[in-house]
Each structure stands twice: as structure tokens, then as C-alpha cells.
């Protein structure tokens, strides 16, 4: 199974897209972007210097429904919040790669990844003092469209695939019921969105997560990967500021440009809906930005 997958991944899709000479600059650009997004998330959930320094408006963070006040004030074990990111690139009309979106929550397609690299990142994120971390993949379950990918991923990495109902929290530690008995969990690679992850803090009607996960992470006894609250960095209104965030945090010029996007809070940006009159009614349609 794995061989078929690897062959498809490498031989067909990837090589068609990239000439070898193009890969190196793209790779550097993606790396730079993710490093800046890590710094941004650490900042958003602590002192918020980027807002005080006027890099982007505080209003954008606090009005984002992906901004999670529940995780402000504590940092994950090795400081990493974006254990795996999927950066969406498109070619523009001149053939240049541009960034369409940064997926830093639950990027789909991770089973294409060399699994040892992801497992290495997850193990490195374990709470301090854990010599041989126990890693699980948390899936919403068989009814999720990506369940097949979750089983592949857990299988490739050689870790347990679990659902929320297999997990339990006790005294700020997370346990999993396995065929071999109950054992503590150190790292959860979750494929469940924040909203559904911990009914004590987020949607109280969720049965896909486990109550107590957020407080166990706060206590530093488990690492949730990717971190809770990363969605604020994906917010479409924050996307246009990523080049500025790269300059601000890294002191570098962005290697990859965004697709052209406009800030609606910019006075020079005008939203232009179109009105079409067919004689019976006037239809208002979304239009362009000028």
C-alpha cells in the first residue's frame, strides 16, 4: 500500500509541478513563512507586540472566531504550535508561485508526508522529561470524509488511531484505553477542529473530543498538535499581513508573495458590487475590488 502511495506522490503530481530548480526557492519561502507564523501565534497568545507596534490591527485578532482566549498565556512544550502546515501555492500568469492560503490548523493531505518526519516533530513536541513519548492520532471517526487518511497516517507512523471516546482526562493527564489497557498519552496529533476538541471549553455538545484536554495542555502534561488557536493565523483578513509579519519578526523580505489580496480596512480599497437591471428587478451581485 505504502509503495503505491509513494510512487503516485513522487512520480506524478509533484514532478509535474516543480522543475528541480524551482523547488529550492519555494522551499525557502515556505520555511520563512511558517517561521513567521509561529512567531505570530506565540505573540498573539502572549504579549501581542505586533499589535502594540502597529503591524496589524488588534481588532482583526479579537474579532476572529478562530482566536481562542482559552489558550492565551501558556506556551506548548517545545514552543512549537505549527507542527505541520500546508501552504497552498498557485502559479500566477507570469508563472511565479504565490501563496493562496496558509493551513496551520488541520491541513488535509498530510498522509503524503514522509511519515518519519512528522512523527519526529510530534515526538519532539512531547512534554519535558518524557523519554519515549506515546503519540496518538485523534480522528473524528469513521464518518469523517478524511477518515481513510487518518488510518493511513496512524498506520505509516505506527501509532494508535483514537477517537474522543477512547480518551479520558484525570488530574490534568490524558489517558487512552487501548487493547493493552489504559496508558498515558503525551502527544495528540488531532484531526479534530478546535470547536469540537474539548466540550468543557468549546462546543459543549461535542462528542468528538474529550473534556479536560485543554487544561491538560495548559498544565503541560500533554501536547496538542497542531496547537489550539492556530486558526487565527489562517484568518482571511490576516492573510494580507503575512508579508509584513515576515518583515517584522524575521527582519527579512518575503521570498514568496501572496496572491494579490486587498485589505478591506484600507481606504484605498473599494468594494464594488454590481447591480444588474433586467427590467423587472435590480440584482445586486458581488463584484470586484478596485
Amino acid at each position: 500500500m505504502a509503495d503505491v502511495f509513494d510512487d503516485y506522490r513522487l512520480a506524478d503530481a509533484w514532478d509535474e509541478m516543480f522543475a528541480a530548480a524551482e523547488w529550492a526557492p519555494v522551499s525557502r519561502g515556505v520555511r520563512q513563512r511558517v517561521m513567521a507564523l509561529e512567531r505570530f501565534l506565540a505573540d498573539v497568545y502572549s504579549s501581542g507586540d505586533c499589535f502594540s507596534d502597529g503591524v496589524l490591527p488588534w481588532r482583526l485578532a479579537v474579532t476572529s472566531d478562530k482566536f481562542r482566549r482559552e489558550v492565551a498565556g501558556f506556551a506548548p512544550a517545545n514552543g512549537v504550535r505549527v507542527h505541520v502546515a500546508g501552504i497552498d501555492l498557485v502559479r500566477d500568469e507570469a508563472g511565479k508561485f504565490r501563496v493562496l492560503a496558509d493551513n496551520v490548523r488541520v491541513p488535509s493531505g498530510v498522509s503524503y508526508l514522509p511519515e518519519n518526519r512528522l512523527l519526529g516533530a510530534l515526538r519532539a513536541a512531547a512534554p519535558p522529561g518524557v523519554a519515549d513519548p506515546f503519540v496518538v492520532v485523534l480522528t473524528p471517526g469513521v464518518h469523517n470524509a478524511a477518515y481513510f487518511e487518518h488510518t493511513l497516517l496512524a498506520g505509516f507512523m505506527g501509532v494508535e488511531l483514537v477517537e474522543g471516546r477512547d480518551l479520558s482526562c484525570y488530574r490534568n493527564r490524558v489517558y487512552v484505553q487501548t487493547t493493552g489497557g489504559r496508558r498515558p498519552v503525551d502527544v495528540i496529533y488531532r484531526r479534530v477542529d478546535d470547536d469540537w476538541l474539548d466540550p468543557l471549553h468549546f462546543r459543549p455538545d461535542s462528542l468528538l473530543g474529550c473534556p479536560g484536554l485543554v487544561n491538560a495542555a495548559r498544565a503541560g502534561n500533554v501536547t496538542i498538535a497542531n496547537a489550539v488557536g492556530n486558526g487565527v493565523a489562517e484568518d482571511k483578513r490576516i492573510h494580507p499581513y503575512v508579508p509584513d509579519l515576515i518583515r517584522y519578526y524575521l527582519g527579512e523580505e518575503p521570498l514568496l508573495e501572496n496572491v494579490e489580496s486587498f485589505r478591506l480596512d484600507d481606504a484605498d480599497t473599494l468594494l464594488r458590487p454590481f447591480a444588474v437591471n433586467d427590467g423587472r428587478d435590480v440584482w445586486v451581485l458581488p463584484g470586484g475590488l478596485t
Partner: protein
Amino acid sequence: MGWRLRIEHETRVRYGGPVLSSFNEARMTPLTLPTQATLESRVTVGPGTIAVWSYDDYWGTHVSVFELPEAHEELVIRATSTVQTEPHPSLPPASQRPGWATIREQAEGRRLLEMTLPTALTTVAAEVSGAVIAEVAGRGPDDTAAAISALVRDRIAYLPGATGVRTNAQQAWDKGQGVCQDMAQVTIGLLRAAGLPARYVSGYLHPRADPKPGRTAFGPSHAWVEYWAGAWTPLDPTSGADVGERHVVVARGRDYGDVPPLKGLYHGPSHSHMDVTVEVTRLA
């Protein structure tokens, strides 16, 4: 020359059958502020001895976390604290307070912005806020806040049981009845609509203005508001009384949803009954 208050806040939940596991957060520990000092505070949970872990949340509230992994049919939370409260300084003359333009500018800042944005629990319809703002127009910020508070007290009759914890400001306004939570949230919605940053305060109130030391009174959990006019300024729309030694601040947030005294979930029968008693004693 403040007061020393002893607060015993007991919450007893009885379930309609065995509950298998339960996860909870309590926000019942008074803050230490320029106007009050928490000298002693303890949250204990039963039956038996349940471990309580704590952290400070985004709003600076002291949160007590506990879980009951064993089957139980009753949950008892006792929050006990001793707090020294001080009289609040009286409002400086209007000439020393910022005007509307300054407040509007300050409201964009990091500390205030979240207290200017509408929330589901505090928003009233634009027609309602528009009419209220028209009625109180022409006043300075402090007088506007006082007028809005008086208007809310006039509009909403204090009637326990008329509303629930999920009742929003518009529903309470329409009903014309509610408790301190409703009056606070309506006031906040109107203050924000009028351009004043405003926040929800959860805490305790001694029911008497001049209690004899040593005598215990029953005072429910209380809620009031603070608005920003160069400094956070308290306002108690429910009692209409000045906020002072009688008030003990536990938590502050955008609305009730940020500061619930008890929140949790459990596996078990849907039927439960909660009894809350708050005993407040002026010690000295």
C-alpha cells in the same frame, strides 16, 4: 477605614441519578485590586476530597478546576473567602474627566477594544439603543452612564426566576423583568452603543448598606458593570447604590459568558437541581 467581609458561597447540585464523570470550572475567588484585598480564599469540592487545580484565565480571573471521576449523585462546591474592601474614590469633577473624543480614541486600544464590541448576550436591537441614546443625548460620559443605568433600572423590574443564565439583553429588555445579570448586560449593551467601553463584573454584594459586624446576611451572587471614562468606573444598575465596601469583585469580562461562577459538564441524567447560598458576614 474599609470593611472586612467573610463570604461563604455554597453550590449544591443534586442529580436525578448517578453521574459517572463530571468536569468543572469555578470562578469564585475574589480578585485583589486597589479597592479590595483578598486575604484568604479556598475552594473545596465534595463529596469526599476532590483535588482542585487552578489557573488564571485570559481575563485575569482565578479559575478552580476539578473533576469527579467516580459515580456520584450530588456535587457540593464551597468557596470561602475573606476580603478587605475599601471605599471607592468619588468621581473627579467632570472637568478632570476625558470627553467623548478622547474616550473614542482610547477605546481602540489594546485594553479597551474588546469591551466596546457587541456580544450575543449584551446586544440590544438598534431601535432600542437608538431610542435610549436619543433620550440621554447631550450629556457628558459620566452623566450618560448614570442616565443609562437609571433607565435600565426603570425598564427592568427585579424579579428572580423571570430569566435564565442564557437570557440575552434584548430578551430581558422585551420582558421588562430580570435579575442583576440581565440588568448588567442590558446596561453594557447600551453603554457600548453610546460609545463607552463597558465590562461585566461578577461578584458579591452585602445586602445592607451599614451592617453590624458579626451578623451574617444572605446575599446572592451579584453582577454589575464598569464603564471606561479615563478609568474603569463602577455602576450598579440593579441596586442603584454606589459601588463601594459592600461590593466584592470576583471576575470581569465582556459578558456573563466570560465569567460564569460555575461551568461544567457531566455524563448522567439530564435532570439536576442546583441550590446556591451565599452568606456574607461583615467581620470588622
